[in-house]
């Protein structure tokens, strides 16, 4: 049942939200179903609650985190749920008439129900994390509601501000909740509430308390976070009435009540909560006097009343708690009715500015009387509900024990605040309903529709009923709620109107008198209409946000200046740092088993060193650098040959040829020289970094090379011939042991070709230099090159076939095929080649890859893992026994991909045409 109660508003929110804007009436009816149905369910559960057993329900969600959908309806939750649903029902009714035709009724009500659900969830949550979840949900749904009139700047700003402040509180709550969970070992409320002493004794208690209080203070608009509430008044009035008087702002004090057994009882709690409450009480009520906007006044009044409630919970005595709960109810009734009245006035006159209002008693007598009664309740006039809880507050203030300073301070604050409350209530009544009539209003006001008044009437009647006969009306509710907080410790108290002519009553009277004097005195002294109060909190907030955004922007721009140079520098520096750190503490002892240098190595070494340095030296003259780098490549290849790596040497040589061709093709579209660099300092800096990097790499390379070594390769060597079927171990590794690498490698190669293809397919670019005249046919080289082609094919095939046993293999063979074809491109031109060769290279790449893939899959048929190679000697007539390794088929795939891939890249680069329009660069 509890789960149904909670689910109803959410489900209906969804349904209402899906209605089209035109279905206003349907939306209202559907929406009303939520609070009404909820109240029925709540009524059904009331006996269980009253009996003290409560209602519980548990659905696991994330048990690992102790986060479950655990619901729990005790007296406190019951009271709040009733408040949320009851006022909610009235608000839906009110909103039905309040919203203009331009507003989307379904959207509004959907948001409202969402909020209602969140609020309900929060009060019935039986798990602290779940409570925090719904807590945040109330922030989010209120964001949507405050910003409902999205075309208004102040609505958007108010919504964002509310979200930021209350959202921050929610995050703090999350922290607090986790700490409480750590202290008690559970997030379940039952456990936490039963662990009060344990919590108070924990060293984590102050942190947990402060975090939770941050949530409380932000949500309940306590000093110094109070400023968001007046700005939330940009919301439609039903929202203000509901969220910002009756329910959401009460979430904070609800949490205080909820966690009272767990957190209260320390001096820290007392000072913090009652101190902040007292300040808020004073600040709120004082500012309320100076508001011109009806809703602004009500908002500050709400702040002060919330301060009052907070203060009561801070006092922590059982009676204070009862008083706090009582005032929550009372405030909800009179404040909601006042907001609705203000909404009616706004609705009818088109303004809420008290400087333009007045004399409405004549025009809207019925509404006026309702509002006046509610205001008197707000002022704490006897026979109205506000008076009762205020009396209890005064009593409790006087009861403070052991904190002399606090007792006097709070008592004085109570009287002062009482006086301020009277003053702003007077202003509300006086400026709106009396005095000279409304000025500069657009339309003639009428009494509102019948049904729009009903909610106000109900609430005012409640104010009166409670005020006159508390014991008959509110007592059982209050007792139930108090039991929810205090358990069996609920003190004896009497809810009667008259407790005798005692100190609290005198304080009330003093406050009343002071308030009247204050209001009329101030009116005499200063032009109340001329005072304009600007929210300092808001200014600070906005300044902070703007400043934060500005700083964030500046910092981001500074860090991410779009400079690749910096990004690369960071990588290099990071690598340097992490590479060098280990050596700071270690002593660098090189084992030093260096081998003697063969004479030829000197040549290679010298050639490589000189050419490398020259490449850097000449790098700005690009063609030159390229030629010199060719010598580096040659030296590297020679080094490979010398050091027993013939396959590497071959590959390096061939790749070098193709690379140079590609680079030259590209260079034709790039400036021939690098522009000079503006900063000499940077060059030196980079040189130093480069030297450090080079030195580090070299030192480390030397250290590792001269170290004793135990490698898996010895096993590979031993098993290559018998099990891999080849004596060129490098090739056996490539096509067998690590054939999977090779599959990936040719995939990379093929993809690269496809990428080049994709990027250049339709590209038109202006070359750096266009030679005059028709291309030279280069007859002599051409003749030779064409003669060479079949011979190169033969060599390529030869290298392919024997690759498994001797240097060679698919990759090398593929390049030996591609390079002479590349030469043909160079000598005969692109058009000539496309006419004659015209392969669909992407498809050839696909075929090659498919062959490689299929070879691997073949072994599945025999029940072996992917790419298990099968070597056999096939007897072919005349030829004798030939080794046939499945790996060779794989190698054919490599061959095709490499050949087609390199030709596709070169061909695409070559086929680029100049733009249709455009001259030389």
């Amino acid at each position, binding site marked *: 049942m509890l789960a149904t109660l909670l689910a109803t508003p959410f489900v209906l929110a969804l349904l209402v939200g899906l209605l089209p804007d035109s279905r206003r009436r349907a939306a209202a009816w559907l929406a009303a179903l939520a609070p009404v149905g909820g109240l029925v369910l709540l009524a059904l559960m009331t006996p269980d609650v009253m009996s003290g057993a409560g209602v519980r329900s548990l659905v696991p969600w994330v048990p690992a985190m102790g986060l479950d959908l655990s619901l729990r309806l005790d007296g406190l939750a019951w009271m709040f749920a009733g408040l949320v649903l009851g006022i909610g029902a009235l608000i839906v009714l009110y909103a039905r008439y309040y919203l203009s035709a331009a507003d989307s009724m379904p959207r509004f009500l959907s948001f409202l129900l969402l909020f209602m659900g969140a609020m309900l969830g929060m009060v019935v949550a039986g798990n602290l994390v779940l409570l925090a979840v719904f807590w945040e949900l109330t922030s989010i749904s209120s964001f949507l509601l405050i910003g409902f009139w999205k075309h208004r700047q102040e609505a958007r700003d108010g919504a964002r501000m509310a979200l930021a402040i209350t959202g921050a509180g929610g995050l703090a709550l999350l922290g607090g909740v986790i700490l409480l969970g750590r202290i008690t070992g559970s997030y379940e409320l039952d456990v936490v509430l039963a662990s009060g002493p344990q919590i108070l004794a924990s060293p984590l208690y102050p942190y947990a308390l402060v975090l939770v209080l941050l949530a409380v203070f932000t949500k309940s608009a306590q000093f110094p976070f109070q400023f968001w509430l007046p700005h939330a008044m940009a919301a439609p009035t039903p929202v203000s009435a509901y969220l910002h008087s009756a329910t959401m702002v009460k979430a904070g004090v609800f949490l205080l009540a909820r966690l009272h057994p767990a957190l209260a009882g320390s001096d820290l709690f007392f000072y913090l909560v009652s101190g902040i409450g007292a300040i808020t009480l004073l600040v709120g009520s004082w500012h309320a006097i100076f508001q011109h906007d009806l809703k602004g006044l009500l908002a500050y009044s709400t702040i002060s009343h919330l301060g009052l409630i907070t203060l009561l919970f801070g006092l922590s005595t059982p009676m204070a708690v009862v008083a706090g709960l009582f005032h929550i109810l009372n405030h909800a009734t009179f404040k909601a009715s006042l907001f609705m009245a203000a909404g009616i006035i706004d609705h009818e006159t088109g303004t809420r500015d008290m400087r333009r209002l007045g004399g409405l008693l004549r025009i809207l007598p019925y509404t006026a009387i309702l509002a006046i009664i509610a205001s008197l309740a707000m002022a704490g006039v006897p026979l109205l509900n506000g008076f009762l809880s205020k009396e209890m507050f005064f009593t409790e203030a006087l009861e403070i024990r052991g904190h002399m300073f606090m007792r006097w301070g709070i008592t004085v604050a109570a009287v002062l605040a009482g006086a301020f409350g009277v003053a702003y209530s007077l202003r509300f009544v006086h400026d709106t309903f009396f005095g000279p009539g409304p000025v500069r209003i657009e339309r003639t006001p009428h009494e509102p529709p019948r049904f729009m008044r009903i909610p106000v009437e109900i609430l005012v009647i409640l104010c009166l009923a409670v005020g006159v006969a508390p014991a008959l009306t509110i007592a059982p509710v209050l007792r139930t709620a108090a039991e929810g907080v205090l358990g069996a410790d609920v003190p004896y108290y009497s809810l009667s109107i008259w407790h005798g002519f005692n100190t609290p009553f005198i304080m009330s009277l003093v406050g009343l008198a002071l308030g009247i004097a204050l209001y009329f005195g101030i009116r005499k002294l200063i032009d109340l209409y001329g005072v304009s109060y600007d929210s300092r909190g808001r200014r600070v907030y906005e300044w902070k946000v703007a400043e934060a955004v500005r700083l964030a922007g500046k910092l981001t721009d500074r860090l991410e200046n779009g400079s690749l*140079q910096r990004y690369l520098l960071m990588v290099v520096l990071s690598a340097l740092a992490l590479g060098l750190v280990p050596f700071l503490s270690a002593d660098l002892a090189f084992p030093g088993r260096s081998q*003697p240098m*063969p004479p030829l190595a000197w040549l290679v070494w010298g050639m490589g060193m000189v050419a*490398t*340095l020259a490449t850097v030296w000449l790098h700005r003259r690009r063609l030159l650098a390229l030629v010199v780098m060719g010598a580096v490549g040659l030296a590297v290849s020679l080094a490979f040959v010398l050091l027993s790596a013939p396959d590497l040497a071959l590959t390096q040589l061939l790749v070098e040829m193709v690379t140079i061709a590609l680079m030259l093709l*590209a260079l034709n579209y790039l400036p021939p020289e690098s522009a000079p660099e503006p900063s000499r300092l940077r060059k030196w800096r980079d040189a130093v970094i480069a030297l450090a990097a080079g030195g580090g790499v070299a030192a480390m390379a030397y250290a590792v*090379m001269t170290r004793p070594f135990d490698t898996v390769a010895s096993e*590979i060597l031993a098993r290559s011939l018998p099990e891999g079927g080849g004596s060129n171990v*490098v090739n056996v590794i490539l096509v067998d042991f690590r054939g999977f690498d090779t599959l990936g490698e040719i995939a990379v190669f093929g993809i690269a070709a496809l990428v080049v293809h994709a990027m250049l397919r339709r590209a038109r670019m202006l070359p750096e230099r266009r030679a005059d005249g028709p291309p030279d046919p280069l007859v002599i080289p051409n003749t030779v090159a064409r003669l060479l082609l079949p011979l190169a094919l033969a060599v390529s095939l030869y290298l392919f076939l024997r690759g498994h046993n001797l240097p060679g293999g698919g*990759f090398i063979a593929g390049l030996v095929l591609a390079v002479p074809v590349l030469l043909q491109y160079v000598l005969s031109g692109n058009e000539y080649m496309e006419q004659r060769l015209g392969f669909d290279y992407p498809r050839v790449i696909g075929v090659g890859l498919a062959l490689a893939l299929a070879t691997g899959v073949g072994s599945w048929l025999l029940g072996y893992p992917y790419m298990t190679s099968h070597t056999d000697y096939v007897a072919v007539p005349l030829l004798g026994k030939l080794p046939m390794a499945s790996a060779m088929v794989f190698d054919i795939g490599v061959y095709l991909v490499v050949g087609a891939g390199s030709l596709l890249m070169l061909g695409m680069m070559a086929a680029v045409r100049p733009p249709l329009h455009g001259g030389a660069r």
Partner: protein
Amino acid sequence: MELALSVFIGTLVAAGVYLLLRARSFDIILGLTLLSYAVNLLIFSMGRLAVGKPPILDKALDPSLANHSDPLPQALVLTAIVIAFAMTAVLLVTAVRSRSDSRSDHVDGHEPPEETP
């Protein structure tokens, strides 16, 4: 020999890093090419150096590291060379397109503001 090769690798790295930190796309490509030479030599040398012992099995010789250089790094370098080539090709084409589109071969797509040195 180990020392000489280390120094060569280090020189290649230094040269490569210096060029890598230049502002023009082609310089960076040159730098990356040098760096890939360096890394190829490095990986290769991590199998330790041996002269005249190619990892090509011979019936006369025991198939062990005493008679053959480590074939594994060689296979890795082969893969690395091929991949580096593919990457270079894509980078080149990108550099060319970038230059063509933004009218500058500066890697940041625009010429730096004039500074007085």
